[in-house]
């Protein structure tokens, strides 16, 4: 299949299937709790219901509050276009696109925080302050881990990093990948407001972090926010699972394997949410610093095991004499 057509197909499959991820997480949590749980398609039903509701806006808010969900959802949709989650190129693939991915997630976070502050309520302020705190500590772990993987795979584009076909578990390269997956999983849990960082099911004002930032949104805005959250789960989960899932080169097998990998990530999230309690607030930065330490360890190991290559430099790597005019 042609590359651009495949990229569009990946993109559309992700847009359609993303709400399945929270469904799987909730189903796993229900199984652990001995309940039947909500149907797997519940998130679609919720979004459809919300799209039909009326809106109530606070008198304090202005256009920033109304723009928050829209810009956030747009940002994460473009981020989805950057991620080659099924192995082959995405819609917007280039050298260094991992930075654009992080930047777009940053846009989503920025507009969510200022939309929360626009309500003039102390609850949203609290959530916004904590969200800013955790995400600022999660970014270094994410980018440093990706640097370690870039070293082992010898490429700085997501397509090059995530699209390889072999993985030797016992080798040092394997150790690097496992370390980085550990670090990225912690960042995944933090960014998507899952236990042990934040509880998505609590609605006590003083204990919510992500939930309280979107407290005053309703109706269509809240539908956008819910859908954006599922896409963010897909993007970050796709990043993690792509490091492990082998690529076969056949597009239908790759997409199927990737969807399976995402289901595994969702199940793992559900298991973690069921067996762990939420960490005390002051312990969360330690968890994120531990993730940073794992990423740094991964980079150090990658540096030891992968010698320097000249692949990323132009042919003539010799220094040229100074030519700045004096």
């Amino acid at each position, binding site marked *: 299949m042609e590359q651009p057509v495949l990229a569009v197909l990946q993109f559309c499959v992700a847009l359609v299937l993303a709400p399945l991820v929270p469904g799987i997480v909730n189903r796993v949590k229900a199984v652990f709790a001995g309940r039947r749980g909500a149907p797997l398609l519940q998130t679609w039903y919720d979004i459809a219901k919300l799209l039909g509701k009326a809106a109530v806006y606070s008198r304090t808010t202005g256009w920033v509050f109304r723009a928050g969900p829209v810009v956030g959802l747009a940002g994460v949709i473009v981020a989805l276009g950057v991620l080659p989650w099924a192995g082959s190129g995405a819609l917007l693939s280039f050298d260094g696109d991992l930075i654009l991915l992080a930047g777009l997630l940053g846009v989503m976070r920025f507009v969510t925080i200022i939309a929360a502050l626009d309500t003039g309520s102390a609850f949203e302020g609290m959530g916004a302050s904590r969200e800013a705190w955790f995400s600022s500590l999660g970014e270094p772990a994410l980018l440093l881990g990706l640097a370690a993987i870039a070293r082992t795979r010898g490429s700085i584009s997501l397509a090059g990093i995530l699209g390889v076909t072999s993985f030797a578990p016992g080798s040092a390269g*394997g150790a690097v990948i496992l*370390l980085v997956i550990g670090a990225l999983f912690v960042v995944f849990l933090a960014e998507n407001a899952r236990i042990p960082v934040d509880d998505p099911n609590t609605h006590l004002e003083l204990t919510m972090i992500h939930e309280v930032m979107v407290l005053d949104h309703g109706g269509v805005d809240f539908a956008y926010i819910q859908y954006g959250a599922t896409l963010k789960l897909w993007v970050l989960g796709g990043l993690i699972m792509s490091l492990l899932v082998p690529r076969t080169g056949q597009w239908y097998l790759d997409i199927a394997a990737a969807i399976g990998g995402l289901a595994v990530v969702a199940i793992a999230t559900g298991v973690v949410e069921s067996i762990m309690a939420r960490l005390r607030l002051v312990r969360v930065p330690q968890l994120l*610093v531990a993730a940073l330490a*794992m990423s740094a*360890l991964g980079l*150090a190991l990658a540096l030891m095991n992968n010698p320097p290559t000249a692949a990323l430099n132009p042919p003539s790597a010799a220094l040229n004499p100074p030519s700045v005019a004096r």
Partner: protein
Amino acid sequence: MTLWIESFLVLLMITSLWLLGSSRLLSCIAAVSVQGVLLAALPLLLGIDAPPWRLFLQAGVSLGLKGIAFPLLLLRAVRSVDARREMEPLVGYSLSLLIGVALLAGSLAAGVRMPLPAAGTPVLLVPAAMFTALTGLFVIVGRRSAIVQAMGYLAMENGIAAFGLAIAEQEPLLVEMGTLLDAFVAVFVMGITIFHINREFDHIDADRLSTLKDSP
């Protein structure tokens, strides 16, 4: 076999980071005991030329002491003092982890430059050993509770033992036995001492023991 030894040594480094970053005493004890188990198995993976029965005996004794006896001694000390959570350390946990990363980078940079006697030793062995020893030293310096300092001492001994495995050309097993005996006696004595300190002063805060000095 050499494939797996790299991952093994990485696990060793992770247990050191685990010790640095955990605030609960039971978690620290778990980290040190896992470290001990890994070190017990290390001579088997390194392919030292000695009769197999000696290697297995060595591994068994190591496992018994480091994997079972030391944790039990430490748990008994914890219970006798009735301390569950550590008091506020001198260096915070996040900062300890970051310093750990810096120590790791330093150990890697220095370790690869050291000349190894045998050609077959894995590259990561000396850095891992150095890192474990330095972590143990840092824990002794940076923490207040005497029990955690004892665990730091254990980690340091583990690191030195691993280092001994790397550089000892003849009879590495003798070196190993020597350090084991040393560590066993130390932990035993430390456990008794902690119990007595707690009985006398009602705390095991090593920082507050400085009030014992003579000058006003």
